[in-house]
């Protein structure tokens, strides 16, 4: 596969066993716009339905049609859902990339390919299965458009046969995909069957890869992180959404719109208990959110890097005017425009300190679709509790790919609307001082227009405790100190890390977000291949909670694993750690635009360990 980083040569090709069951990666190389998504999702879903843990990763180009695209499905009995660099089973449909795709396969891999591509002679250490797609599709329909469309379904049929994927599961998956479109289902099933039949008749099994039923996915769902986050927002009772389309974040708001339409219209009047506004740009999107949040609505936006940059000024206003706002950053790779369809964790440091003039912001760091759901709810609660913009740092890999999960639990905690002044509080406090630290936690009481409580004048400018304009040095410093105190309160409120202290381990790993899945796998590799035990802390929020420092203290060396060039979380840690802790910190960075894989972590860590 031409755009990915090539599998490391250090991974010594072992002589493959005869049967490799539920532990390999399939990659389908097509051209985007050619309608392969249905075929790929059916493949993914049918394996999932067979009870085999599975993950799917879409590597698509930044255009709409005509460029190479790759879809990787990984079946893993052990439940690994991170990226696996080595492709075991290639479906080569794209003439442009087929050659390079084949050349980068590890020995022993299998290749289903479009016969005219003549890939057979490229290598002798692979298994080749030529399939005459055009010929087969000719037998299915005469409509040229439909032919292009169902052509992809044929490879599903071929794979069903070669990998022993249950054809009934495929049909069920197809029905799930296409809904009630019987004609479409019939047509696609025809193609699937044709592929199956062709394989049965012409392609004797020569490779070791097979899918066998398990029961590891019972009751689970398959969902994309952006949809999960949207459901979280829905359940958080979001009432205002201001957004501007940008890959890979658009699908968050677009799913949310669908859910809101369905579940948030007043049953009697049909009217909406929410508003979604497609703004003219990201500055306006956050401006609207700030306006709505100031007014007391639960308000959010969703964006990616370029939008984050544009939101810098308003984020600072939100910080200083103390207005709640929830900002999802579905991180993508590089600058404006960068690689908008590639993943990364490259906005961590800029988001943490976004804006000018001494600002810092809480961040939530979901690793899983389940956390996209729960942290969406956490974010609204935190934003209102802390009266400040809160960032949820997801990424393209998490947001736009399908992941397995247990069904999400219905929230048990009521909405936390934070410190809102009411008559009782006013009576207790005697006086309303918008920016006074009454409780010692840096969080003042607020009122909103229309709630009957006293008004105040909101401004980014310097102000005293009574929200009056002030340029006094003491007022300014007091306010800054209180805001710093509030950030310390945030430290006690953001989600705590997940810590796995392995007894006897001297090495620790710190990771966050989607890097988690590679780390999980790498730890197993280190244990099984090197006998190396590791402890692990997965960050779930920023500012750092005491557990983080404890963890570092307990380890001899700590590897901070992340998907950016500059070691951004590593830098944030370095900013806060004691020298003894800094001494222990190492940075493992990955910045190629593709999801991090376990092997890269293992290799990098071992290299460092040898050096240290």
């Amino acid at each position, binding site marked *: 596969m031409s755009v990915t980083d090539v599998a490391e040569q250090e991974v010594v090709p072992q002589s493959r066993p005869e049967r490799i069951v539920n532990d390999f990666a399939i990659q389908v190389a097509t051209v985007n716009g050619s309608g392969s998504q249905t075929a790929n999702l059916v493949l993914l879903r049918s394996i999932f339905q067979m009870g085999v843990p599975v993950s799917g990763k879409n590597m698509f180009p930044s255009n709409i049609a005509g460029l190479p695209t790759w879809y990787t499905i990984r079946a893993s009995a052990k439940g690994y859902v991170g990226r696996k660099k080595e492709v075991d089973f290639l479906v080569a449909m794209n003439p442009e990339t087929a050659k390079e795709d084949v050349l980068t396969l590890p020995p022993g891999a299998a290749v289903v390919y479009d016969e005219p591509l003549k890939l057979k002679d490229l290598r002798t250490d692979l298994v080749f299965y030529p399939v005459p797609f055009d010929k087969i599709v000719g037998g299915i329909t005469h409509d040229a458009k439909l032919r292009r469309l169902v052509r992809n379904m044929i490879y599903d049929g071929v794979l069903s046969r070669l990998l022993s994927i249950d054809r009934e599961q495929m049909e069920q998956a197809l029905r799930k995909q296409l809904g009630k479109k019987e004609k479409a289902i019939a047509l696609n099933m025809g193609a699937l069957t044709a592929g199956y039949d062709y394989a049965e008749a012409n392609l004797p099994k020569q490779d070791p890869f097979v899918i066998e039923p398990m029961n590891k996915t019972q009751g689970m769902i398959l969902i994309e992180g952006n949809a999960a986050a949207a459901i979280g927002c829905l359940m958080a*009772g979001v009432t205002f959404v201001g957004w501007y389309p940008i890959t890979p974040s658009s699908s968050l708001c677009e799913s949310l719109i669908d859910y809101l339409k369905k579940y948030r219209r007043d049953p009697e009047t049909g009217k909406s208990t929410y508003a979604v506004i497609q703004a003219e740009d990201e500055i306006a999107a956050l401006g609207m959110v700030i*306006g*709505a949040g100031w007014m007391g*609505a639960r308000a959010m936006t969703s964006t990616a890097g370029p939008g984050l940059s544009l939101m810098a000024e308003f984020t600072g206003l939100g910080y200083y*005017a103390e207005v709640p706002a929830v900002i999802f950053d579905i991180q993508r790779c590089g600058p404006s425009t960068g690689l908008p369809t590639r993943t990364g964790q490259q906005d961590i440091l800029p988001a943490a300190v976004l804006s000018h003039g001494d600002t810092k912001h809480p961040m939530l760091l979901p690793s899983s679709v389940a956390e996209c759901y729960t942290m969406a709810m956490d974010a609204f609660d935190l934003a209102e509790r802390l009266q400040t913009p809160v960032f949820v740092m997801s990424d393209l890999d998490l947001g736009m790919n399908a992941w397995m999960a247990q069904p999400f639990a219905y929230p048990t905690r009521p909405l936390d609307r934070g410190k809102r002044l009411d008559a009782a509080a006013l009576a207790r406090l005697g006086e309303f001082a918008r920016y006074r630290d009454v409780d010692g936690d840096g969080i003042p009481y607020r009122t909103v227009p229309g709630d009957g409580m006293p008004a105040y004048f909101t401004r980014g400018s310097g102000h005293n405790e*009574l929200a009056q304009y002030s340029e006094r040095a003491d007022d300014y410093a007091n306010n800054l100190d209180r805001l710093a105190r509030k950030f310390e309160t945030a430290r006690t409120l953001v989600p705590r890390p997940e810590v796995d202290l392995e007894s006897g381990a001297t090495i620790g790993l710190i990771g966050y977000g989607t890097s988690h899945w590679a780390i999980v796998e790498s730890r197993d590799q280190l244990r099984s291949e090197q006998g190396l035990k590791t402890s692990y802390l997965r960050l779930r929020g920023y500012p750092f909670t005491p557990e983080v420092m404890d963890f570092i203290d307990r380890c001899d060396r700590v590897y901070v694993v992340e998907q950016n060039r500059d070691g951004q979380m590593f830098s944030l840690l370095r900013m806060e750690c004691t020298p003894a802790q800094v001494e222990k910190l190492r940075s493992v960075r990955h910045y190629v635009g593709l999801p991090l894989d376990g092997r890269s972590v293992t290799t990098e860590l071992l290299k460092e360990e040898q050096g240290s």
Partner: protein
Amino acid sequence: MSTPVAPPPVPGKKVNHIGLEPVAYRGGKTTLCAGCGHNAITERIIDACYELGVEPTQVIKLSGIGCSSKAPAYFLASAHGFNSVHGRMPSVATGAVVANRKTIAIGVSGDGDTGAIGIGQFVHLMRRNLPMVYIIEDNGCYGLTKGQFSPTADLGSTLKTGVVNDLPPIDTCALAIELGASFVARSFSGDPKQLKAILKAAISHRGTSMIDVISPCVTFNDHDGSTKSYAYVKDHDEPLGDISFVPYFEEIDVDFDPGTTTAVTLHNGSRLLLTKLAEDYQPTDKQSALRLLHETAVRGEYATGIIYVEPDKQDFLDLLGLVDEPLAFLEPSRVRPGKAALDEIMESFR
């Protein structure tokens, strides 16, 4: 505390029809220059709200950044106010109004705030026809940053430093009409009668009411070609050599009959031609409104009055199909769907 509560009305005292005295409509003490047109506009907003019997606590006051954008601090002390960031008040207002449809939103901006950095948000606000009053306090310059040209500066006008403005002005009224605002007016800070009347109409209108109010900057705005321009005075009255000196002026008042053109001499000696729309002018036709603006502009005049109005145009809240209650105040039970909904959603992913 920053928000004094209006004292209970004393019998016999002057009150409006909701029983409030004029003082209930006042705000903090102005920090603008004496004689600044913006102060006169503040006074008219106070008058208009008092006379209409607007409930002050139902109002939200929003602005960007600039001398003009400070104005919301100087009226309706018991209303919430938001002095946001430069040029981006329209988006803040959009979020705020949508979040609570029961509020009356008064936005105050400057010609730099709206015409330069904020023109993009202005365009989209007009297009959305968001129900609010949007006032541009238009002095053709950046007051707060000491007098640079704004995009409404007239062709050929000069800065104190002698820089000449080469670019044609943007006509915010023509733009607003072109873009879909449903109430568009122009007035002059020194014409209290007309301005108050327009403000009252604007507050009463449902949809975006855009009012461009010519509001001289007595300190920096300065037209060349007049023997009484600030520049001219400076040259001939040498003691005015101190750049930090701000002359003190009385506010200008004019009042003239509809259908006539009045020349107003500004503090700096330059003349402003105001054409008051005739009483039989029909402001409901877009084309004639635009023609009027262009024709008067060509003659170097400003047409003042309500230039265009489309009383029945759907506003943005209608388009959004919102519930009647403010979104901000919906009960948790109305915004968090029940378990059945989540179950149904989960089922779709199985």
